[in-house]
């Protein structure tokens, strides 16, 4: 039977694993972006994350180490309409109970996220400048895992705006997840992100097979209707080629007001995206 602590940790896991909907660069690491693959284009993103968290409320004194893997498939139905599927897996979750001196390790598959993204606005003003707005619609789907999965299909709706201007890019998104579970477990969640990236090199794209380095800073926020909220500040770096992107990030809590789930101390993320 799932305990309250375990349920809270499952929720935490779900939040941590709520990978952004990746598409093309200049795409942030932890946020959504209003850029899409070409019609018939496929992008596969593989993320690994390490999370340190603790939970010391309601008499509990827990330290949590979580290693997760999230695979996201992005496919362009048309140049404007994209579908995304994310499969998050808890490779290892270790819970150290400091009160009893015991530890527990398990693994499993969390809820899948299926999203559709539709571009409503595009303005390509110069060879490298663009502004776009997409709407997002989808759901979290239970994986059936006894520990890491919820029991409900939870709809998601939102939007994302991206502007790329010279060496700079900004993205901002807002999503709302409707939790269709009843009672105390039926907590809706709002997610909001803002990301800024700067192209470190090259200063100008002058060669036919360019590669580029980007530095990013993101603000990733969560608010739940049970009054839990947190904001992460997430610096990162990306190396971008024509076919693949390598990226690294660390998420640090800037604000946490959590009564119902663990507080993350930090999250380290490594990921690669490849397009076909």
């Amino acid at each position, binding site marked *: 039977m799932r305990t309250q602590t375990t349920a809270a940790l499952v929720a935490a896991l779900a939040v941590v694993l709520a990978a952004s909907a990746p598409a093309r660069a200049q795409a942030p690491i932890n946020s959504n972006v209003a*850029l899409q693959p*070409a*019609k018939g284009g496929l992008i596969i993103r593989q993320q690994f994350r390490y999370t340190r968290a603790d939970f010391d409320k309601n008499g509990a004194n827990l330290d949590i180490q979580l290693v997760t893997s999230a695979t996201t498939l992005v496919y362009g139905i048309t*140049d404007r309409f994209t579908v995304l599927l994310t499969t998050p897996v808890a490779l290892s979750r270790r819970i150290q109970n400091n009160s009893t001196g015991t530890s527990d390790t398990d693994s499993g598959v969390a809820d899948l996220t299926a999203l559709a993204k539709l571009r409503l606005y595009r303005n390509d003003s110069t060879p490298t400048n663009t502004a776009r707005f997409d709407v997002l619609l989808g759901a979290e789907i239970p994986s059936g895992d006894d520990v890491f999965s919820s029991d409900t299909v939870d709809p998601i709706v939102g939007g994302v705006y991206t502007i790329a201007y010279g060496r700079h890019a900004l993205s901002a998104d807002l999503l709302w997840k409707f939790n269709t579970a009843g009672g105390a477990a039926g907590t809706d969640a709002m997610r909001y992100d803002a990301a800024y990236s700067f192209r470190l090199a090259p200063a100008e*794209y002058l060669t036919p097979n360019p590669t580029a380095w980007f530095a990013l800073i993101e603000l990733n926020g969560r608010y739940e209707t049970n009054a839990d909220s947190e904001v992460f500040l997430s610096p990162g770096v990306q190396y971008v*080629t024509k076919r693949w992107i390598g990226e690294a990030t660390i998420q640090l809590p800037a604000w946490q007001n959590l009564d119902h789930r663990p507080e993350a101390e930090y999250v380290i993320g490594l990921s690669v995206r490849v397009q076909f």
Partner: protein
Amino acid sequence: MTRRNRIAVGVAIAALGVLAGSAVADVEQVRLKIDGMSCPFCIHNMEKRVKKIEGVEPKGIESILKTGITTIPWKGGQSFSPASLRQAVADSGFTLRTIDVVVKGVARMERVEDVHVLKIVDPGTKQAFLLAPDARADRRQVWDSLMARSKGSESARLVRVQGRVEPDAKGGSDGSWHLVLTGWAPVQFGAQVDLEVQGFVCENCSTGTMQGLEGLDDVIHAQANHQTGRVLVWTASASPDTDALRTKIEALGFTVTHAHVDRSDEHADVWIN
């Protein structure tokens, strides 16, 4: 004709052009100007779509993000469709601004109904880019300016032109496009070899023959007509090795029954740029 008039005619020439539907003389290069590709990851999206277009030589495609210019080598003898390029860029999610082409072929003035039109043709297949004179220009004067300093009669001229492909007043929906000429120059050659070939059964035969001949060092340009069996070859040297041409064609499985050489001093070309 005075120099001022020649310049004026040259400007008029630069404003001319009609490109009807799919066309081919010998497209050598296509340049696209595309907006919205903000990073290297975007290039693959676009190039993947473009590479699927018939006629594109996929290995030589180059995209420069700063200028938005994608340069596409074109396979010899392959048809060219601006609509296909436009759709490929649209499917990749970016905005295509312009299409420029470099075309090599033989310039001819022909009368179509009551209009003289200037064509860049493939004399073997008769396929052509049409460069129709502006209605306000003196068509005869345009042709005369091209022939002003040439000797001989109004015969075929091997020329390389570049121009911008733009949709006509109907927006190109019916496949009609204008070629706005931005520059042209004669292709200097030493001799023209006229061959009669037996054994062609389809367009693949003539296309393979053209590509095979253009692989020879001395060959500048080759055109073939699978229906008539006529093959025209322009060579750099004034004394081409016709045996080498014959050997090449016969190695492809065909038979050369006749070869005639015209040296360029018999059709001297001096062009206005």
